[in-house]
């Protein structure tokens, strides 16, 4: 297990921004988009084989060419007075009970990421993920922010479209960030590094969908780029969000007309989702029963298949 550093750039006051796959791929889409937008250079990686299973083998004319694992790479980009480090992990390690981003491996991976942050003198670490909530997909998602240091709270309140856990109705400042986004915040706190998690809102009825949810990634990037004091072009991401919204609309239309679901339940699902166009938070007219009903039928329509290895011909 090791970190491979191919080149050692001299960086000034860098911040580290981390992205992993998660619900709606909100975090990784935001961080990867940022990486491309600022043309960051790859300079290091964490070797993957102790954390992940290989996902592909390439055998050509009887010769084993390579085995491919999910990649964990670091990138940097120099700016005039404040540089940026980016970490992108293609997967979160699974812990006991197949919980992603949990357990000993996830803890070790989080520490390795922070080893690099410390080595290059990062003064702040950002992670990004999804906040699953009762929001309609045509509304602009907000960004839920959770710092690991109370001194960052005042700063967070200054940003538009950003909310703290304590400002969300019914949460009383409490909550849970699952996976590496949360773990990294905790490990950073233990090591005395300031860290902040930015979570873009995603409608709960899309949490198991196979689509990206770029609308939330846009909200995250709007806040993140203001914090980093950089500007990037978000137009391509807006175009992607528009296409995804069209797919969601089409999917919901099909759901509302599906013969696999009784008409009465279809009408109930439609009403519940439509109501969310005018409300934002969890204590509105959407009941737990409505929520269960929607998830039950939507999950069924999102189910996927599996693939075998080279032993199946």
């Amino acid at each position, binding site marked *: 297990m090791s970190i491979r550093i191919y080149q050692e750039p001299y960086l000034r006051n860098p911040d580290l921004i981390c992205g992993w796959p998660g619900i709606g791929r909100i975090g990784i889409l935001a961080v990867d988009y940022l990486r491309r937008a600022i043309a960051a250079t790859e300079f290091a990686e964490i070797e993957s084989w102790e954390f992940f299973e*290989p996902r592909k083998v390439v055998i050509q004319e009887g*010769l084993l060419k390579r085995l491919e694992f999910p990649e964990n790479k670091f990138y940097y980009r120099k700016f005039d007075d404040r540089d940026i480090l980016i970490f992108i992990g293609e997967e979160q390690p699974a812990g006991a009970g197949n919980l992603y981003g949990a357990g000993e491996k996830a803890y070790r991976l989080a520490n390795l990421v922070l080893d690099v942050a410390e080595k290059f003198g990062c003064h702040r670490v950002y992670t990004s993920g999804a906040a699953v909530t009762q929001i309609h997909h045509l509304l602009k998602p907000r960004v839920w922010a959770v710092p690991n240091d109370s001194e960052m709270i005042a700063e967070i309140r200054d940003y538009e479209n950003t909310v703290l856990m304590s400002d969300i109705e019914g949460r009383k400042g409490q909550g849970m960030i699952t996976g590496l986004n949360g773990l990294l915040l905790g490990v950073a706190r233990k090591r005395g590094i300031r860290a902040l998690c930015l979570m873009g809102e995603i409608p709960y009825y899309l949490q198991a969908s196979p689509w990206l949810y770029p609308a939330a990634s846009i909200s995250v990037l709007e806040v993140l780029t203001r914090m980093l004091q950089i500007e990037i072009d978000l137009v391509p991401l807006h175009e992607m969000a528009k296409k995804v919204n069209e797919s969601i609309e089409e999917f919901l239309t099909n759901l509302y007309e599906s013969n696999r679901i009784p008409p009465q339940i279809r009408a109930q699902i439609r009403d519940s989702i439509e109501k969310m166009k005018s409300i934002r938070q969890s204590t509105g007219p959407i009941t737990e029963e409505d929520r269960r009903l929607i998830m039950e039928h939507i999950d069924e329509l999102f189910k996927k298949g599996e693939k075998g290895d080279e032993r199946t011909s």
Partner: protein
Amino acid sequence: MKEQVNILFSPDLKEASMIVCWKEDPGKLGSLVSRVLIDHLKARIFGEVNPEHFFTLGGVIVEDNVAQFPISRFYAGESRDIVVFESNQPQIERYHFLSCLLDTGEYYCQIKEIYALGGIITPIAHTSPRRLMVVYNQPELRNKLRQFELAEVNWEGPPAVNSYLSWLAQRRNMPAISIWAEVAFYLASSSDWTAVKSVLSFLDHRFGLGLDFSGIDRQLKLHNEQLARLREQNPEVDRYIRTLEVGLSLTEEEQLSLTSSVSDFLG
């Protein structure tokens, strides 16, 4: 490694070859080949991987009315520098399991090469000859095995455990060869003696083992007679097998029906 592998004694081996057999292979290929090799070599267990690190151990699997338990054992022969590793495939921590296998081979047996065996489920008739396919982890190995009729594999996709092992060996600059035998799909859950004999013939020639094939030939004859009886009794089975024998394919439904009839008949 000490915690994960229990070594009973250090075998007196020099530049040994390690033959890796997996119990889950289709056609019981790994289990049957390893049994023949262990008996022939009069091989003794010298090490065992502790299962708690690599298997979920949430109960036991029952096979043929008998409770099974994951076993991963190293055997060394008395007269030849050959190590047989017979094991269930690890369910968790495959990287560490395969690393233990290689560490044990390197430190206790000074292994110079690995032969990892496996079966490939193929839509062929049991009466067809079985091709052996090969994957090398070093290009030089191709010349070494040129004399054998081995078909070279082309594959891009999810890796089997043998590919993972070969890749780890490649990182240590250790030669590794995966030998894949075709297994008739409808014999995948029973025993494919033709596939077993193909692999053993290869190993016999490769290592000059002087194996006695009379026992295997007896099993093969018995097995073929059983299948011939089934063909006589069940015209549908006969039609499906004849279709395969002339090189045509079956529909998914026909394949399932043939597999089910053969499995029921062989028990």
